[in-house]
């Protein structure tokens, strides 16, 4: 690890100003991804601003019937919240499908969103990676790309967004609230939060330098049956090959966001209109622009089958009272 200095901020505005005014500074929340990358000297901040004292660890109702999740609410606390379990079941399901118990205890809501979009070549400092070193090339394209993205990629990067929580937030139409170094706040629609790589894969999100996430809000509950289906190489503690976060209504309409296939949670509201016609109709449209590699071409049919399974699960649950995951 490179040496760095460390301070703790007392207010969100102070934290944002501290990161903006110090060269090569970063926010530190749980640290579960940042410290991992710092040990490998993939991340090399000279200064860390610890945000743990900002008192952003509450989940509160909003005026429009939704909830506001403080940036520092831990993944465990968020998954355990009775309102989330009852009204936003897909979010609890997604969180507990990710990482390990130890990591979920330390990882925060905002930190989870800021985990790096990454691939094995990003971690292997002996390999070319445009995300780690802009302009150095991409060893994943033409390398072993079984885990990597099939859509939303570029000639510079085919890394996959690795998280589960964000896939559920995308399907729930979450909003990210931030404060910038000047003290200005803004709200970012979840679909605009993570970037596609284009020719600058080293930038994962649309946050500005020093801009701090203060909360994530969810609109009022959608009802329906909440499903998170994650297909992975082992039963627990593994990244998704494909995951589906879905909210399906009794009339067969619904929404779905897909994880494991793109540089950000993948959702197409127009494709969802075909939900009553089934998984194939949705997937044909959703993945029309897919550019899989030889190694990961299996993900395209796997999305359709996983979505079909999610739709089937929703029907089964609706017909069998008590088996659950129904929203309000």
């Amino acid at each position, binding site marked *: 690890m490179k040496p760095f200095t460390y301070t703790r901020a007392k207010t969100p505005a102070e934290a944002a100003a501290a990161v903006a005014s110090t060269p090569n500074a970063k926010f530190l929340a749980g640290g579960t991804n940042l410290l991992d990358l710092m040990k490998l000297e993939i991340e090399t901040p000279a*200064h860390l601003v610890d945000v743990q004292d900002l008192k952003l660890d509450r989940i509160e109702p909003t005026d429009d019937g939704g909830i506001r999740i403080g940036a520092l609410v831990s993944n465990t606390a968020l998954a355990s919240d009775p309102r989330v379990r009852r009204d936003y079941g897909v979010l609890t399901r997604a969180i507990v499908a990710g990482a390990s118990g130890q990591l979920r205890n330390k990882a925060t809501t905002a930190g989870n969103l800021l985990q790096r979009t990454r691939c094995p070549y990003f971690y292997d400092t002996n390999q070319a990676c445009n995300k780690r070193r802009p302009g150095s090339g991409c060893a994943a394209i033409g390398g072993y790309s079984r885990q990597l993205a099939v859509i939303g990629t570029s000639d510079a990067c085919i890394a996959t967004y690795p998280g589960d929580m964000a896939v559920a937030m995308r399907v729930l139409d979450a909003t990210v609230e931030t404060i910038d170094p000047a003290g200005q706040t803004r709200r970012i629609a979840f679909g605009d939060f993570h970037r596609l790589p284009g020719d600058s894969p080293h930038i994962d999100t649309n946050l500005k330098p020093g801009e701090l996430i203060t909360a994530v809000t969810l609109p009022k509950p959608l009802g329906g049956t909440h499903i998170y289906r994650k297909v992975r190489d082992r039963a627990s503690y593994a990244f998704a090959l494909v995951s589906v976060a879905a909210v399906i209504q009794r009339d067969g309409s619904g929404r779905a966001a897909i994880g494991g296939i793109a540089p950000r949670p993948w959702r197409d509201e127009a494709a969802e209109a075909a939900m009553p016609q089934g998984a194939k109709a949705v997937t044909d449209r959703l993945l029309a622009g897919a550019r899989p590699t030889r190694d990961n071409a299996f993900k395209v049919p796997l999305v359709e089958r996983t979505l079909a399974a999610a739709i089937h699960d929703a029907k089964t649950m609706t017909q069998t009272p008590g088996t659950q*995951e129904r929203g309000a």
Partner: protein
Amino acid sequence: MSLGDEAQVSRRGLIVGGAASCALAAVPQAEAQAPAGTMPSTMPVTLTVNGRKQTLDVDTRTTLLDALREHLHLTGTKKGCDHGQCGACTVIVEGKRINSCLSLAVQHQGDRVTTIEGLGTPDKLHPMQAAFVKHDGYQCGYCTPGQICSAVAVLDEIKAGVPSHVQADITSRPQATNMEMRERMSGNICRCGAYSNIAEAMADVAGGRA
């Protein structure tokens, strides 16, 4: 870990120490030219570890794991992968299990930390330690302190109603079933493969508590 391994680690430590001594000798010259952020930065941190208040002066880069092992000489907590993948470094901080390798010591100012040394002693084992012995929940033993800290915290999480991936109904209270133990312990790797005995040890303790 055998005695031979300990000796090897010590020898390597000496070699690393030797190199560090050379580097230290060169510090005064380097300091004058070094840009900000290239020199180690140290800070004081106070932790309560196994009930004892400890104040340390640490390099900011020191993980909680290294603070426990290298500064406080509590070597029961093990360094496995050092990247949060294996769980050997699991300790209980403010009542919650975390990977001590993925946390800086300075993040834990004022925190209460429980390590394997704080759960029980050879004369007075924690019920989970006794259950691991009874059920043969280990072979080489390297992952065991992390497994036991994690197992103790898992039973507390189940009791507190923390949901898991294997629950059929996430709005209901979780039960201490074998499937729940296996899922919740997935952040602790045992290369000897003692998993089934670990789950039995946990079931024994969970049953005794109920």
